[in-house]
């Protein structure tokens, strides 16, 4: 081999080793930024549904995020249209809205106005109706419904029950 070829070969050999090393370290770096298993594992909240009062918004906590629980009064149930009925949950004999309390625009917590039965997000002025459907942009979609499973008169957040899977399949909510 000529000198030039030998240098060329050494250069390519180094390039190959360095390339493998670079890809491997990028992979390690990516994985080091991942959420820890302990963060992933802590993730179930059980709510006892007997204590809620009609038209009173209660904020619960699941995975560090606020979850809105709103029990509807019989008048509120009567005023729901078909579109709205798709988003509400029946637990026992009562009807509830259970949604993530984070605006689907950029994640502020919208405020509930019990008189107007509507939500306003103060950050960029988005609004939602009493079931969490968007009524004014910028939010691109209604408030997301967290994964849930209904067990008797309690609800487990973080587990995917039949009702939740149906909502997902029907495109009523996105997975969060």
């Amino acid at each position: 081999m000529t000198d030039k070829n030998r240098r060329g070969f050494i250069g390519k050999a180094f390039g190959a080793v360095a390339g493998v090393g670079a890809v491997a370290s990028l992979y390690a770096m990516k994985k080091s930024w991942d959420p820890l298993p302990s963060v992933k594992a802590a993730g179930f909240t059980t709510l006892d549904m007997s204590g809620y009062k009609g038209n009173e918004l209660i904020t619960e906590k699941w995975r560090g995020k606020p979850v809105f629980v709103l029990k509807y009064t019989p008048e509120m149930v009567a005023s729901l249209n078909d579109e709205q009925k798709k988003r509400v949950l029946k637990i026992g004999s009562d009807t509830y809205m259970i949604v993530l309390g984070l605006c689907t625009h950029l994640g502020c917590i919208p405020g509930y106005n019990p008189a107007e039965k509507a939500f306003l997000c103060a950050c960029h002025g988005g609004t939602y109706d009493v079931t969490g459907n968007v009524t004014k942009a910028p939010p691109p979609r209604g408030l997301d419904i967290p994964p849930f499973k209904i067990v008797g008169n309690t609800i487990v957040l973080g587990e995917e029950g039949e009702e939740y899977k149906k909502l997902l399949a029907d495109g009523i909510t996105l997975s969060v």
Partner: protein
Amino acid sequence: MAHFTKATSLHDWLNQRLAIDAVRRVMATEYWIPKDINFLWAMGMVLAITFAFLLVSGIFLLMYYQPNVKTAFDSVNYTIMTEVDFGWLWRHVHGVAASVVFLVIYIHMFTGIYYGSYKKGREMIWLSGMLLFVTFSAEAFSGYMLPWGQMSYWAGMVITNIFSLGDLHLNGLVEWIRGDYVPAQAFLNRFFMLHVLLLPLAIMGLIGLHFATLRIPHVNNQEGEEFDFEAEAEKYKKGDKKGSKVIAFANDFMSKDMFVVSIYLIFFFYLVFFHYDFAMDPVNFDPADGLKTPTHIYPEWYFLWSYEILRPFSTNIGLMAFGFAQVIYMLLPFLDRSPNAVPAHKRGAFKIWFWLLLINMIVLTAMGKMPPEGIFSTIGFFAALSFIGLWIALPIITKAERKL
């Protein structure tokens, strides 16, 4: 082996080993600056000095700051502010410098735009400057997370959510950036790392690059005049200092630069001692609470203009407009199609464009601070549209410009 002789002095000893005379000549006594410039050309030095203040005050804050969600807030607001002797000084210097540095960056940028200092061989100066702007923005944002107050938390939530990119719904990416479902310990820790190590390192590297890009084209001058630096430097060295169009960087130009810096520092320390509150958001004196959004979330003043471009539109369009605003200044040297690299006042339509852009930025900034309601929403919406319109118009009006 290289040949060394017995040194006649410490200077000679060093000179034989490090060639300090040659370095001094290349970097200072024979680095040439045009005479026809004004105080606006001192802004680069003002920025360098402000960065030094950030570094020194940051090092002292780092001695007591604790990057832990349980203790961060108190380590700043209690330990540093009330227990550490002069802790308040470092914090106020750091906070005021972080805010004022952006004011000076904007002045520095708009000076460059006005005098056409991004064209004809100066494109790399502009690009490296814009990289500094982006890195400084990331530095300021990551620093804002550290006191872990309400604004830290909610700004962190809103800004990281931008990476879900609207309907692309990339929640996994957002959680990856945060290291959790919401901003929490992993988030605070990694932004702490970025703020005190990785980004300052990048900034120092970029400052070096920025200086290097100035070397060959040299700085511009008030008339955009092109002249032969070598020939002018020869005149200067021969003793015709009056007839030469240049002066040496040090000590001649440096002394003027430092005079401007002195005036700036008087203003700076006036703010540090008497008006530091403008750089400290009152909402951030409440500890972070993931279950309570402040009634009105807004970023620090220097991000308001781009925030206002995001805000009036629906999510996807807002994100596109925001992305546009982030990159468009980078492209300035390529969007300006005119052959003239002269000050705006000699360039007809471009002069009007320059002032409209400046006014537009101020209006966007003012509206960004207002609640997103009624008349403010409307003005903000039209200002955001005008911003985009102005940049689309730029290649057209500059293409039409006559060659001078």
